[in-house]
């Protein structure tokens, strides 16, 4: 059974249809990259999978581990092991990072039938995971994302991923706003988290990230559909030729 099975997914926000029949199968252990021009629906797909309520699914289905994902609330999906690394992590002044992560980990562990970690063990884990992405562990005393630089915010998302150990991780343009060193650190972190029972969907605008996180599959999304799939070479081709040739091939105006 596939970990994730998206069938003919249609979604809209207000009256605007954005996803127009997405099909995608992701197996545990795989890394899928989804590329595509601005406005093609990549981030919408991530949001719909994570359970953002602004979007209305009008058609199709999504099976996660055989269960109907679309019937679950956002927090239920997270506890089931779906993780979205946000493109724009929101700043939450006054919400202490350590408190937030302790609650998140507690909720997820409880769902898995595990007791909460002892405080010392939790702190040790925070330190270990922070080092994985080159984050200063003192960030646990700060408010969630508050005053974090763009790079720190992205690292913090991967840090949370490492801590919460999801089965399906969706990275929504995690590379945007990162300089080359930060990009490499973040990619190293992700690579260390790759495993046979975890899948990644890496949404990106540029091929650059895929030099570091080498995908098993590359999909091209245009106008709300996945119009082409291939291996990592497809990303190189896109880098070279841009997206217009695909639009032309599928009969859309460039």
């Amino acid at each position, binding site marked *: 059974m596939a970990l994730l099975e998206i069938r003919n997914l249609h979604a809209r926000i207000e009256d605007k249809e954005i996803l127009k029949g997405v099909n995608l199968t992701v197996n545990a252990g795989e890394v899928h990259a989804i590329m595509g021009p601005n406005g093609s629906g990549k981030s919408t797909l991530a949001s719909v999978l*994570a*359970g*953002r*309520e602004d979007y209305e699914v009008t058609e199709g289905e999504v099976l996660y581990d055989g269960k109907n994902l679309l019937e679950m*609330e*956002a*927090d239920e*999906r*997270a*506890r089931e092991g779906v*993780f*979205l690394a*946000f493109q724009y*992590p*929101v700043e*939450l*002044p*006054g*919400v202490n990072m350590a*408190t*937030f*992560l302790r*609650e*998140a980990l507690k*909720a*997820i562990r409880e*769902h898995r039938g595990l007791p909460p970690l002892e405080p010392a063990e939790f702190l040790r884990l925070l330190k270990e995971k922070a080092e994985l992405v080159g984050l200063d562990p003192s960030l646990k005393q700060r*408010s*969630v994302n508050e005053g974090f630089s763009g790079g720190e915010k992205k690292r913090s998302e991967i840090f*949370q991923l490492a801590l*919460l150990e999801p089965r399906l991780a969706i990275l929504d343009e995690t590379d945007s706003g990162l300089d080359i060193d930060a990009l490499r650190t973040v990619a190293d972190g992700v690579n260390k988290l790759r495993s046979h029972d975890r899948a990644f969907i890496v949404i990106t605008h540029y091929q650059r990230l895929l030099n570091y996180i080498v995908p098993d599959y590359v999909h091209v999304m245009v106008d709300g559909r996945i119009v082409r799939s291939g291996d990592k070479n497809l990303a190189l081709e896109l880098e070279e030729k841009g997206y217009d040739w695909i639009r032309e091939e599928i009969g859309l105006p460039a």
Partner: protein
Amino acid sequence: MATLTATSTRPEARFLHAFELQADTALNGSNAHLTTLRRKAIARFEALGFPGRKAEAWKYTPITRTLQHTYTIQPVPPLPKLSQADLAQAAIPELDAYWVVLVNGQFIPELSTPATALPQGVILTSLQHAAQAYPELFTTYFAQKLDYESDPFLALNLAFARDGFFLYLPPQTALDRPVHVVHWIEVDEDLFLQPHHVVVVAQEASLQLLYSGHSRSAARTFTNAVTELYIGRGAQVAHYDLRLENNTASGIYSTQAYLEQESQYTNHTLTLDGALVRNNVQVRFEGEAGEAHLYGLFLGRGTMHIDNHTMIDHAVPNCVSNELYKGILDDASTGVFNGKVLVRPHAQKTNAYQSNKSIVLTETARMYAKPELEIYADDVRCTHGAACGQLNEEGIFYLRARGLTVQKARALMLLAFARDVLDQIAVAPLRAYLDDLVAQRFGA
């Protein structure tokens, strides 16, 4: 006859009648100065009357309707027997404090820190005892600056007040721990209480004063309380005022602070419970280089009505005032914030900041905010901001996307909202206690 009936049902009439009936006991006969003052006050109250529906200062708070209720007006309220164990509920864990207990507005010496345990020269006693034992000191301060000419509730309190606490700190005295005043309400019949407190902090002395109000009654009460604070030159006062009464307790809590040169006053008014609560915090700078910080947190639930009126009178140049009030209104509760800043014509180099932020959680909760800046000097810096909104949905989604339930996510967000007021509390055990109370309230 019809006219007479109409007049006698006005709530004011009940108070005027009670005053005449109780004149002998309520007037503290031995003190001629007090007798005259009380006569003046009741006359003033009669002339002013309770605020009508058009009174601007009471626009959003139906005080006169609340006062239609027939409360018993007694000079000496009944005194239930309370033990230390009863009062343990009012104690703040880990807080070592000088302890004052008032029950139904009356000072209870047996439950309070004895005078012998206080540092030399410090007076911490009942208002009544202070009037008798320290007549000169008492007369110098009691009601000397109280604006009962224009405020009917101050006039009413002055006419009736018999007890409360009196605290005097001599010059250059720094108490080694806070003073915790517990006001405990426990009554069997609906009662009108009017305690009156006087705090005198002489020059360069410093005080941490915590006042917490509690109630344990099914009967309704209305407390019309007055606290006068005289803060001497270079003195420092941190004042924590906690409303923890239950939903049968309404009241008007008027605090008037007078600041001499180079003094500092910090007021934290935290309203977590009650029925109808009106907090009046008034600060007047009377000497240059004074500093006042006013923090407020109000959490409405049920049909609570919480009205915060602040007034900062920059009567002299070179003073700084800073206000931060935050409210969270749930269920069908109502919040009001009215922040007045008056900068008088010669009060140059004034710095005044005011911020009020509220979250309204339901369709039936209400928030009314009104900044009121009256600036008559030209070389001043004054800013104010008011914002009212809902919880940050994007923030809630972020927390839920990490597995937190919607209840937990809301709780963390609400606690975070309250955090910057709670963080201003300098007494660590008190801050921890309130952190817990607020977290429990929201289920964090």
